């Protein structure tokens, strides 16, 4: 959370409309359709469109960008009525879109990516000089800090996003749609993005900003339109609302909170991972000497920017991937066992990508209930599938987990994402697992389903379930976890106490660049985020985090030492005293 870095422009209400959508209705199979949506975006402003997942934000933006045609309603750009048949029409009208998932070719340079599809031609060849000059010019003008020559694969996520923005500017966009631009960014990168948005606005461009992160929206937007169940609820000024009020407009009801109330951690270790290393095809360690212990009733959260080895760690723990090191389940060495044997011993798995790893999309729900439980009652009896019992138990999950479906005979693909996820969580919680490995359990899930899933996780935790939680949602991690570890380039580099750490502090640790980044401008924490008291925690009472190379990380996050004790003075004298005072590293970093 930051101070209002991009101040609402005083001329907001006076500026003419750049985009005007009236009475947009879109009927669409399986998802919430847009119903009578009206939206006015004034020129030279940042206009946020907020709503929970599945509320219809993306559909609306696809309509504005010409990817979908509305069934009813009209679109006006700069006062002129338009009818887009394809994104090419929208681009010609000065609209550009930056998708949530970048559409860049890794093995091409920035320049090549930017000009792709609108190449400046000199004779028969690409006019690199002209393109390069134009890219530099745009980059300087809007403060994007994009250079034309590097390969995209060398760029970080934040830089890639700026390349995407530059790409649409290069095509002459005056109205830029950003679809969930901060979903993939750590807090520091978000700051940089907001800086860039301020530049765009100052140059008279119009930004439509899709998000469901309310703090950000309040920081950056001049006006906010709330969408719920496919229709616009209201448009408000940021000064008129609080995050809570905004959230209630979005959800239309009371808000769920991921906070776990009281600790249920026991001293019985259920999952012990020691020295786990996973290598990719090139022999590079993508999970590097990871050790962790999870006790019955404990949720251990792993924070990290995506792509730092979380997926591989999860797969190695589940036995989908094999690596070096040891995995123990309730004192039993399962390192050599495959996924099925581990599941039989009580491991459950909520995979990161539910449609790829979690479901058989074209199979009915009751068959999906059997997936991963092919060896367990009630879905099987001996070598046979017990259809009746499987169906009955699917009905139970549908009931207990509020999976909204007309029948258990429909295929999984007919359900919305949130309902698919509830089915998966319900399935994995069946048969009283000892360990749950949950990767992004509420990603892409609406608030209602999120609350339900959190409730179930908490309930199971109270009954002694050990949970390894991977999430990109820092609030979820902090709210649900009993202990936190930070993963960076495959290593567990730090641990944190979820009771005291803030998302910003975790974000610093996740980038591994804690001191410099946190010392940068624009990150002065508001009064509510100022940590008080000795937030820094040495590692938990029984957990023994390791990590051979200690990267000094941000404040309130304890870098884990090479030894099992955080008090190895000889090797690390002067680097970090244990426990470090809360504010010792705030300004000067832990190198002080």
């Amino acid at each position: 959370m930051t101070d209002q870095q991009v101040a609402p422009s005083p001329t907001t209400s006076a500026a003419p409309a750049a985009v005007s959508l009236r009475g947009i209705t879109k009927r669409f199979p399986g998802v919430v359709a847009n119903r009578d949506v009206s939206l006015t975006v004034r020129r030279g402003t940042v206009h946020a469109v907020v709503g929970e997942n599945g509320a219809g934000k993306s559909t609306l933006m696809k309509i504005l960008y010409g990817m979908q045609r509305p069934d009813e309603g009209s679109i006006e750009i700069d006062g002129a009525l338009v009818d887009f048949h394809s994104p090419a029409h929208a681009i010609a009208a000065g609209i550009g879109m930056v998708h949530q998932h970048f559409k860049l070719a890794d093995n091409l340079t920035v320049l090549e990516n930017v000009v792709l599809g609108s190449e400046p031609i000199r004779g028969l060849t690409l006019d690199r000089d002209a393109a390069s000059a134009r890219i530099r010019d745009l980059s300087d003008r809007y403060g994007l800090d994009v250079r034309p020559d590097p390969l995209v694969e060398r760029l970080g996520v934040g830089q890639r996003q700026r390349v995407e923005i530059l790409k649409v500017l290069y095509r002459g966009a005056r109205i830029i749609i950003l679809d969930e631009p901060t979903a993939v960014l750590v807090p520091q990168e978000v700051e940089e993005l907001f800086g860039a948005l301020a530049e765009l606005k100052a140059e008279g461009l119009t930004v439509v900003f899709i998000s469901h992160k309310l703090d950000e929206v309040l920081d950056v937007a001049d006006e906010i339109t709330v969408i719920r169940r496919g229709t616009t609820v209201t448009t408000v000024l940021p000064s008129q609302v609080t995050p809570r009020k905004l959230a209630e407009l979005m959800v239309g009801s009371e808000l769920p909170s991921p906070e776990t109330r009281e600790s249920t951690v026991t001293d019985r270790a259920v999952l012990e991972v020691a020295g786990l290393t996973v290598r990719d095809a090139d022999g590079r360690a993508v999970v590097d000497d990871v050790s962790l212990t999870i006790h019955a009733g404990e949720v251990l959260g792993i924070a990290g920017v995506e792509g730092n080895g979380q997926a591989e760690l999860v797969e190695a723990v589940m036995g989908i991937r094999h690596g070096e090191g040891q995995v123990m389940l309730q004192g039993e060495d399962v390192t050599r066992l495959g996924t099925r044997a581990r599941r039989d011993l009580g491991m459950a798995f909520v995979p990161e990508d539910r449609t790829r790893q979690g479901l058989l999309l074209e199979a009915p729900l009751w068959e999906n209930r059997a997936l991963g439980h092919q060896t367990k009652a009630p879905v099987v009896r001996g070598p046979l599938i017990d259809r009746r019992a499987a169906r009955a138990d699917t009905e139970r999950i549908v009931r207990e987990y509020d999976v909204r479906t007309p029948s258990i005979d429909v295929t999984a693909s007919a359900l919305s994402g949130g309902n698919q996820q509830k089915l998966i969580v319900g399935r994995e919680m069946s048969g009283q697992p000892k360990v749950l490995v949950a990767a992004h359990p509420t990603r892409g899930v609406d608030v209602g389903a999120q609350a339900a899933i959190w409730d179930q996780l908490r309930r199971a935790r109270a009954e002694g379930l050990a949970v390894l939680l991977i999430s990109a949602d820092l609030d979820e991690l902090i709210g649900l976890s009993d202990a936190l570890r930070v993963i960076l380039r495959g290593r567990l580099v730090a641990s944190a106490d979820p009771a005291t750490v803030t998302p910003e502090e975790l974000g610093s640790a996740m980038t591994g660049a804690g001191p410099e980044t946190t010392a940068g401008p624009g990150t002065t924490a508001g009064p509510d985020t100022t940590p008080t008291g000795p937030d820094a925690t040495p590692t938990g009472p029984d957990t023994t985090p390791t990590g051979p190379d200690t990267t000094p990380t941000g404040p309130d996050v304890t870098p884990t030492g090479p030894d099992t004790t955080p008090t190895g003075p000889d090797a690390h004298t002067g680097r970090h005293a244990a426990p470090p005072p809360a504010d010792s590293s705030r300004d000067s970093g832990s190198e002080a």
Partner: protein
Amino acid sequence: MAGWDVRRIGLGLAAPLLALVVAVGLSSAVLLIAGHDPGTAFSAMADFGTQPGSMVQIVNRSSAYYLSAIAVAIGFRMNLFNIGVDGQYQLAAMLAAVVGGAVHLPPVLHVGLIILVAVLVGASWAAVAGVLKVTRGVSEVISTIMLNFLATGVVAYLLTPQRFAILQGNNISTKPIPASGHVPGFTTDNGTVYGLVLIAVLIGVGYWFLLGRTRFGFDLRATGQSEPAAVASGVNVRRMVVAAMVLSGAVAGLVGMPQLLGASYSYSLDFPAGLGFTGIAIALLGRNHPLGVGFAALLWSFLDQSALILDINDIPKEIVTIMQGTIVLAVVVAYEVVRRWRLASEQRRVAAELRESGPAPVPAGGGVS
């Protein structure tokens, strides 16, 4: 629920019927261009194909088609393309005939031994492709094609008088299987239906049960639908690949049995070839469904048989080959169209039903408020 099933069956039938209509249409066009009257051609085919004598032939031939198609379908259900059924059944039939001709056993045992040899040979030949796939990453498409060539070569090598063959007139064949190894057929006035047509039925039932009712079948189907999901659920995909190939090859080994033990009693140069490739087409047409494949095999066999009359009417019988080709092409397209339409309509239906039931969380099972 009943209405739903009817709907599903209707959709299932829509695609093959559509394909058939397209095929008849295109064949008619070809006939017209060639200056023949499609009406005459088709009615001649229908007349001849439904003669009792023809029907016996159709049933006999379709038993081999069915087994071959089921062998292919087992692979298809797991996204494995076993093109090698042809080589598997030829090698299996030949070696089984050799063993059958070499031993003397009590009747049932004798037949059992021959069938066992066929199954084992087919399974081992297919296993080569499976093992290559999981250990060396060789695509089963390539390896089974190669194994077909190898099988042809091996059969040609072994089927010489110096080795396992004897000369009978102009034909070269394995030593005939003695009577104890024959399977009696069902004799009618118009010919004999092979006794081992029953084995095709048994395999069909077994296929249905294995895939639909057992854990193994579930694993196999799950792997075919989504390998990552199957892996995450604990399926050992490498083992499943080998198992599916072995199973497919085992069924492929049976393809030649109805004829070998019901009519020819020896493997000779004129033993029917190409059944494995026909099986691919029939499995596609029958949607890998045990009943669908049955109908497809009968249809294919009917077309083969009824084509015989066309030459007499001065109509080129190749028109049937064109028809069979168009059916397969049309059916592949039609299935994909119907499949997408079905998924989309189901999504629409679910969304609509949920809207009707309102925002309240009322699952279909009811019982919760």
